[in-house]
């Protein structure tokens, strides 16, 4: 019996496509002494890789997913394991046709070549066995293809072995993992123990079980994807090789059909969500087929049979074309499979504890499963497992008719129905939307709240902020290392700073309050907070001179902004909150009634005001105090629709995940300061280089000149649309980056719809005209602002009043 090496630099558990790819890429990056093990035999150990239908559609609404897909295809082509065949997403409904125009826009935004809309007749030409009368059209991508994933994995392993980097062992079962002092030490197997510095769990649907052995949790669940292979198909009798005909995605029925040799594979995401636990998956010996090919349950496929018959009656309706093979194939799905919001949507650090529970994973995966081919609105909300994190004033908000959206489990009011009376007051200034798509997950009340806040004041629930303190003698050094801006500031200063990766791209943007000589409080967005905390934690000094404490659930935050903010606050505090004694960008403890409150004078909405921090159990009392004082000054509740979109867009404030991401640098985002601090920080070298050169691209604010579509309806872009030249061509900077809308929303005080987009610096000129493509039509836009100069109140007179 073979034994495994007793030591390794890294152990990769799993020899599916992921484990093989990781082993290969580590080897390419110079890692040596790698050991890969799998419980099953090679080349097909029995996981999802062995039964996957293996096709790749390059266009996704997510920029990150599109980029990962493009790189995967490039690698598979290099390995000679990719067969291009083209693919068509077909539409049976007008709603889907609109969605396909959105696909076209995403293809243009992310630079996927040659995708185009095709008519039923054109589809018939490409796929003669389709019944074109049941479809309205399609989205054709010539670059679609299939990969031989088992072959690709074998080649990657072989290359890593050739480099002298890797040893792979099959039929090795992991029995346990030893963790000492929070670090992985060894992997215990039935063929001996392996000491390792790093262990990679790449076991797909089994990974929760493996992670548990190391005391970690990987929030994914094994789920069934049904597939039926029928044949032989007379029409494919002369087919050579794996695939020659375009793959069809029948989007409205959540199904696909692909030729495979002389057969036709029919797959579905339409059936009820069928979820398992890793413990339900049998060993190779106990499984009738492979461990992840569960017995096919025909009942769940009955409707799918009829749908596929409608689309391809010549093949599927042929009595002599018979089922060759049918499985309930096991895939692993994450609870946020549909996430399009977080650009770091592949980072496992994104998950909070409640998001790792089996309950949450199952509920969200079940809800997301049938949206696999769904028309998912950019603001779409989950229905399951809500009300996990509630602010202390949640009851007050409900009474005010709050409409809640979820961020990292928090229920955040996006607008308040109690403000609907403001609609009449502001009339057309709320920029009402007549099209259902743009009115979905939106309300004109958001714009009414915005306008009223600019007249009087608004109170905003900011409980979802992630807060953590950095303390200890090494706190300043840590803050300096992570933050671009100078952190050796007076106690009581509030610093808004970019956080960079080594290459000078954005890791985050956040606010740091200096609360003491050795005490900093980091305030960042709820969605990205976990990843920010991990980034800080990763930089902690080894000598223990600094600590990080998560205070997200210890403090709650309320914001009050508007011209009346000072009057509202003055009425309930004895502290001096005048402009002179409580300057912008500072924070201090003040008393509000019986509460000691940390007040921070900053603004993300462009008006005078403060963020107030109190222990979470005192939050309701603080809310009541501000609310009661505000009654005399026209205070209204204001939702995140204003805070996150309209208020910030008018002020050209950037958002992480929208404008700010690793692909762009500080100078391109227009966030460089005149001076740079002496102290070192992560990304400094790159940042200095970026400052020295002329930026390739520059972030701009554009306004839409004419919203009228060909049908005479006013349309409002929602984000991610391509920005085009006046003749409809793409705009690409010298680094190959395309211009697309990074954020979009109303600017009610300006009466405009504002789009942010990077533009090649030569084109980033105020007044320049371009087009934006939205749902298949093009609309004129004008550059209104270049760099970070706000469109509204450019002198910042309101904030500094």
């Amino acid at each position, binding site marked *: 019996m073979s034994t495994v090496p007793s030591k390794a630099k890294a152990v990769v558990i799993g020899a599916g496509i992921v484990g093989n790819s990781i082993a290969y890429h580590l080897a390419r990056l110079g890692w040596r002494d790698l050991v890969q093990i799998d419980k099953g035999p090679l080349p097909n150990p029995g996981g999802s890789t062995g039964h996957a239908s293996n096709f790749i559609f390059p266009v996704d609404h997510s920029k990150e997913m599109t980029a990962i897909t493009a790189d995967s295809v490039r690698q598979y082509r290099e390995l000679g394991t990719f067969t291009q065949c083209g693919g068509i997403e077909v539409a049976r409904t007008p709603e889907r046709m609109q969605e396909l125009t959105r696909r076209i826009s995403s293809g243009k935004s992310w630079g996927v070549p040659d995708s185009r809309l095709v008519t039923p007749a054109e589809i018939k030409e490409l796929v003669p066995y389709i019944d074109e009368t049941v479809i309205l059209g399609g989205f054709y991508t010539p670059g679609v293809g299939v990969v031989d994933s088992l072959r690709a994995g074998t080649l990657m392993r072989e290359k890593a072995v050739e480099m002298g980097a890797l040893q792979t062992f099959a039929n090795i079962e992991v029995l346990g993992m030893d963790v000492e002092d929070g670090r992985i030490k060894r992997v215990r197997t039935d063929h001996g123990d392996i000491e390792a510095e790093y262990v990679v769990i790449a076991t797909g649907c089994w990974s929760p079980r493996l992670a548990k052995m190391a005391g970690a949790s990987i929030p994914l669940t094994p789920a069934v994807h049904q597939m039926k292979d*029928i044949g032989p198909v007379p029409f494919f009798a002369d087919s050579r090789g794996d695939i020659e005909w375009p793959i069809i995605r029948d989007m409205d029925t959540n199904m696909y059909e692909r030729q495979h040799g002389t057969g036709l594979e029919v797959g579905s995401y339409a059936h009820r969500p069928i979820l398992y636990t890793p413990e339900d998956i049998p060993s*190779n*010996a106990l499984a009738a087929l492979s461990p992840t090919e569960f017995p096919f349950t025909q009942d769940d496929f009955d409707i799918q049979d009829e749908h596929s018959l409608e689309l391809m009656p010549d093949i599927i309706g042929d009595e002599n074309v018979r089922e060759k093979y049918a499985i309930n194939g096991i895939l692993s799905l994450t609870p946020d499979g549909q996430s399009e919001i977080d650009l770091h949507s592949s980072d496992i650090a994104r998950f909070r504890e409640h998001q790792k529970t089996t309950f949450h994973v199952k509920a969200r995966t079940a809800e997301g499963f049938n949206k696999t081919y769904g028309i998912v609105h950019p603001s779409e909300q989950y229905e399951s497992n809500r009300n996990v994190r509630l602010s202390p004033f949640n009851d007050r908000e409900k009474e005010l008719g709050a409409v809640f959206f979820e961020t990292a489990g928090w229920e955040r009011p996006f607008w308040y129905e109690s403000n609907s009376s403001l609609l009449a007051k502001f009339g057309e200034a709320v920029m009402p939307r007549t099209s259902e798509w743009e009115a979905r997950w939106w309300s004109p009340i958001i714009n009414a709240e915005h306008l009223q806040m600019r007249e009087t004041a608004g109170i905003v629930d900011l409980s979802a902020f992630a807060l953590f303190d950095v303390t200890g003698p090494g706190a300043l050094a840590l803050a300096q290392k992570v933050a671009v801006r100078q952190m050796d500031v007076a106690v009581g200063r509030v610093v808004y700073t970019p956080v960079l990766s080594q290459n000078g791209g954005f890791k985050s943007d956040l606010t740091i309050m200096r609360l003491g000589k050795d005490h900093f409080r980091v305030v960042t967005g709820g969605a990205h907070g976990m990843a920010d905390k991990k980034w800080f934690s990763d930089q902690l000094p080894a000598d223990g001179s600094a600590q990080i404490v998560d205070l997200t659930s210890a403090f709650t935050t309320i914001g009050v902004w508007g011209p009346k903010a000072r009057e509202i606050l003055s009425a309930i505090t004895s502290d001096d909150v005048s402009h002179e004694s409580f300057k912008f960008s500072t924070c201090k403890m003040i008393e509000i009634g019986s509460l000691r409150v940390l007040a921070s004078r900053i603004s993300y909405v462009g008006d005078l005001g403060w963020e107030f921090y109190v222990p979470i159990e005192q939050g309701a009392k603080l809310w009541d105090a501000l609310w009661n004082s505000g009654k005399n000054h026209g205070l209204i509740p204001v939702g995140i629709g204003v805070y996150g979109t309209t208020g910030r867009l008018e002020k050209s404030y950037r958002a992480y995940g929208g404008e700010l991401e690793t692909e762009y640098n500080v100078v391109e985002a227009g966030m460089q300061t005149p001076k740079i601090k002496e102290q070192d920080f992560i990304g400094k070298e790159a940042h200095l280089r970026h400052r020295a050169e002329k930026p390739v691209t520059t972030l701009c604010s554009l306004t839409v000149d004419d919203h009228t579509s060909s049908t005479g309806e006013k349309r409002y872009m929602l984000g991610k649309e391509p920005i085009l030249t006046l003749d409809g061509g793409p705009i690409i900077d010298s680094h190959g980056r395309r211009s697309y809308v990074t954020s979009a929303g109303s600017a009610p005080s300006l009466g405009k719809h504002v789009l942010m987009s990077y533009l090649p610096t030569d084109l980033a000129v105020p007044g320049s005209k371009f087009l934006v493509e939205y749902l298949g039509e093009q609309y004129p836009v004008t550059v209104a602002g270049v760099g970070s100069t706000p469109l509204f109140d450019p002198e910042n007179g309101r904030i500094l009043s």
Partner: protein
Amino acid sequence: MNVLVCLKRVPLAGSTFLLTPDSKDIDTKHLGFGISPHEENAVEAGVQLVEQMGGSLTLLTLGPTEAEEQLRSQLAIGASRAILLETDGEDWDPQATAAALVEAVKAEETQFDLLLFGAESADSAGYQIHIRLAHALGLPIVTNVKSMKIENGIAECERVVGTTREIYQTPLPAVITVRDGLNIPRYPSVPGRIQARKKPVDHKKPTAQVPKLEKVSLSVAPSNTAGAQVLGKGAEAVPALVEVLKTIGILA
């Protein structure tokens, strides 16, 4: 020509399988279900006879509610209707099973010309039900049939016993049990599946006899874990391969 085919829902196991904690049954938590392979030959034969001669093909099984899955799959291949004698999921002993089948056949208005079985069930292989049924109905029976021809109310059946071939003729109605080699069973088509959903399946409550046979326990035979043996690579492997082929009697 009215044909009846009797089926049994059986688990489809991998290279090994688990037993339940009391060792009385196969643990089916990881397993799918099908019918015994020889029964697939019986259904195929029934479908072909009805295609050639007209009439009807009826399926009959005794088993849990879930056995309807197996009936629907065979209806998709071409049977006309099915009868499910529903149990609470416990395996019935051969005597009780046969009595229930007899009761169901007698209750049928249809006079069956041919009652087909697989030679044995894939899980328990009792080789009893068909004989008991034939006896109870006073019908002739031919077992283990690999070839069958029906003309003028006479079935001519060929069975293989060791190295000899036996050929029998029996008048219909008769019970015939079949095995692999009789035909190549077809798989369902999608239109077949869709039609099968609309075909009638009668659920009946059979009379349960007190079991006379008690299953005490099962044990899993030790499997040959040696697995595949690599004889060599390329031309070098030829002599070793020839040896193996001689040993198993393929080469002289």
